[in-house]
């Protein structure tokens, strides 16, 4: 494997991890808003219990992603930086409002509702804009004139493909997050919340799959090069759909431990993650060697070999240092029954 291919694989890994974490993060913020008036279901509590300790970690991943692009593919960073000025700025504005108001809503109890609405709504818009980076890299909306690049915004926002991507991002965000929160609720013994999130996942799963088909349909017209390359790996896409079906089945079948309860959310989470992993593998592979079609490839954008080796070394060292931290974090917030099944502490004294 060449260095450039290693680098793009690492980057793809980051994109995938961030995508999963971000859907959880923005989705949980949204559900926390949706169920804020239905206090008896505890659905909002569950979402907040997940969100409070994790949002900062998730946010760090987006910075990690941007840094990975410019440290491994500086020339791609140049092109992406130039063409993404407007959508990137919109993402940043929404992200800052979303994060800040999320923190504010936790601190200013009396105004929690309105603050949660602001952070929930700005949060759910972000995935739609974030995913727009993908159709932009397909090249159809970027004008390369001489040495300069320009994003044709009106062409982008009149493209059915762009809207298919946006729809996919938003529905996937809600689907994955409701599924994960269903699992989290079950682990927390919040049966009422579990039922709510399980129902949401069952509704949103098929919608997100339809959106995925819409992406493929519109892709064929707008970026045939990547569509055709994806079709070369059709069997993996079929495997991905199979994972989706198993995941759905896992939600419908009775639980192994508790016969009275329907669904095995942990299994469903794993299956659906595999579904997205398989599909994004096909997409990522078809995207190669282009970072921005047709001008910027992984070879042409690749950094200096010395720099890459240094950066790659820090990845390994950084991973070794951080891994125990992540495990400890996981054990405290995802495993610890005292955290999961906490009684709601008295709000004010």
């Amino acid at each position: 494997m060449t260095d450039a291919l290693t680098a793009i694989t690492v980057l793809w890994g980051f994109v995938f991890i961030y995508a999963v974490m971000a859907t959880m993060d923005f989705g949980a913020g949204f559900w926390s808003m949706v169920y804020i008036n239905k206090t008896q279901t505890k659905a909002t509590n569950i979402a907040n219990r997940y969100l409070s300790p994790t949002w900062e970690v998730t946010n760090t991943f987006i910075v990690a992603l941007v840094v990975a692009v410019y440290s491994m593919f500086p020339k791609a960073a140049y092109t992406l930086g130039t063409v993404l000025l407007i959508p990137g700025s919109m993402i940043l504005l929404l992200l800052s409002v979303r994060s800040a108001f999320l923190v504010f809503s936790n601190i200013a109890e009396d105004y929690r509702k309105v603050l949660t609405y602001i952070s929930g709504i700005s949060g759910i818009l972000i995935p739609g804009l974030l995913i727009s980076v993908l159709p932009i890299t397909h090249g159809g909306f970027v004008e390369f004139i001489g040495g300069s690049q320009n994003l044709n915004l009106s062409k982008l926002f009149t493209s059915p493909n762009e809207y298919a991507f946006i729809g996919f991002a938003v529905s996937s965000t809600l689907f994955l997050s409701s599924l994960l929160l269903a699992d989290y609720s079950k682990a927390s013994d919040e049966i009422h919340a579990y039922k709510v999130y399980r129902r949401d996942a069952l509704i949103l799963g098929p919608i997100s799959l339809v959106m995925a088909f819409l992406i493929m349909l519109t892709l064929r017209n707008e970026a045939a090069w990547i569509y055709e390359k994806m079709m070369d790996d059709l069997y993996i896409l079929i495997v991905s759909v199979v994972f989706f079906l198993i995941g759905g089945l896992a939600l419908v079948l009775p639980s192994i431990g508790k016969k009275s309860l329907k669904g095995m959310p942990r299994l469903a989470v794993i299956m659906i993650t595999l579904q997205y992993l398989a599909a994004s593998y096909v997409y990522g592979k078809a995207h190669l060697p282009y970072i921005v079609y047709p001008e910027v490839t992984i070879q042409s954008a690749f950094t200096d070999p010395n720099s890459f080796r240094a950066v790659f070394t820090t990845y390994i060292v950084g991973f070794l240092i951080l891994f125990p931290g992540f495990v400890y974090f996981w054990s405290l917030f995802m495993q610890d029954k005292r955290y999961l099944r906490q009684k709601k502490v008295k709000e004010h004294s």
Partner: protein
Amino acid sequence: MDDILIARSLFGTTMGFHIINATIGVGLPLMILAAELLYQKTNDIDYAVMAKRWTKAFAVTLGVGIPTGTIAGVQLSLLWPGFMEVIGRVMALPFQIEIYAFFVEALFMSIYVYAADRIAPWMRIASLTLVALGALASAVLITNVHAFQGTPAGFRIENGELVDIDPWAAFFNPSFGVTAVHVVFTAYMTGAFIIATVAAYKMLKSDFGSNLYKFHQKALMASLIIGGIFSILTAANGHSAAQYLHEYQPEKLAGAEGLFETQKYAPLAIGGFTDRETESVKWGIEIPWALSFLAGNSFETEVRGLNDFPEEHWPPLFIHTLFNAMVGVGMLLITLSLIAFVWNKLLKKDKFPRFLMWLFVLSGPLAMLGIEFGWIFACTGRQPWTIYHVLTTEDSATTATNLGILFVLFAAVYVLLGVMEIIVLRYYFRKNTVTDDLNRAQQKEIPLYGSNT
């Protein structure tokens, strides 16, 4: 305005707002750690309550500092793609390592706050230490990029191409140490004086000798000691920083001092404004020979003046004023800490006079102003370069036009976040008074941290 000026203004506004929260984000954890350690040592519950309240304030500033930091990191690529292309090739390491520092800070901050009552006290202190270290490391690492911009190293340029790239040589560029230490010391100093501001104000508003008064007095003393130590360290380090300018960026030093003619026995101009026409500093006080001595530890040191350099490479002349304002703030804070020390420890008086208390109230905002002056001085003083003698600001900027609307949008969001931040902090601390927290801390069954989150 031309597009480059708008791009600079936009990024400058982002940074100007971000560094307020970032500085507090680096400075406060040290204060929290000090309070936690004092609590372990004295078992005085006041210190536990201090740690808890400062952690709340810290969490709110993080709520703004993290997103604005994210904006700054991404805006670098959006507004300065030419700059980031070079940085990506040569100087990616500090950004990359900074990510790990962010992760350490984010992971252990959540553990410290949301798992406080489930983990052992030593683990709490360890988590807090890691938060402080993470914040410290991210400040050091981002400053490293700034240092590289002034003293680039680790590559050569051949026919317009970057060759012989050595990323670790770039990482350990000449001014890394001195610049990073400067940022860390001033952040610790500022964090401490911000606490002093609040504590002194609250003491003025409460009855002398009451529990509340004593609580804030303890906070004030801790902050004055830490703030005093770091303001003196800052001065010592600032001196080396200026000597680095003399060696590596003589135009910047000449601009900072308003010196036009290259000379030995150069005078130091304090205050005043640099005048282009007369090539002198007007309204300032001149100390003969002092600049030569400060620059090279000898009166015979030759200090280069602006006339040695082509005018298009001059930094803007107003940096003299910014430089003086920064140094002035530092001197003022040292004086203030020394007076407090003499009054309290040598004269053993238990009550500060009112005017001194009001000066303490001013110390936090003053320190923050010093940070802003210093930062604007450091970045405008490097103009017209983004990387000294390698890359101009013009070649770094985005080719996009119509940045004006973005400037307005971002500025509006910063105003919104800044105002909300103040409102939320005031709301929270009014609703949860020191007395409330002291009561909670005394009732063991209510966990202090979980009691109001």
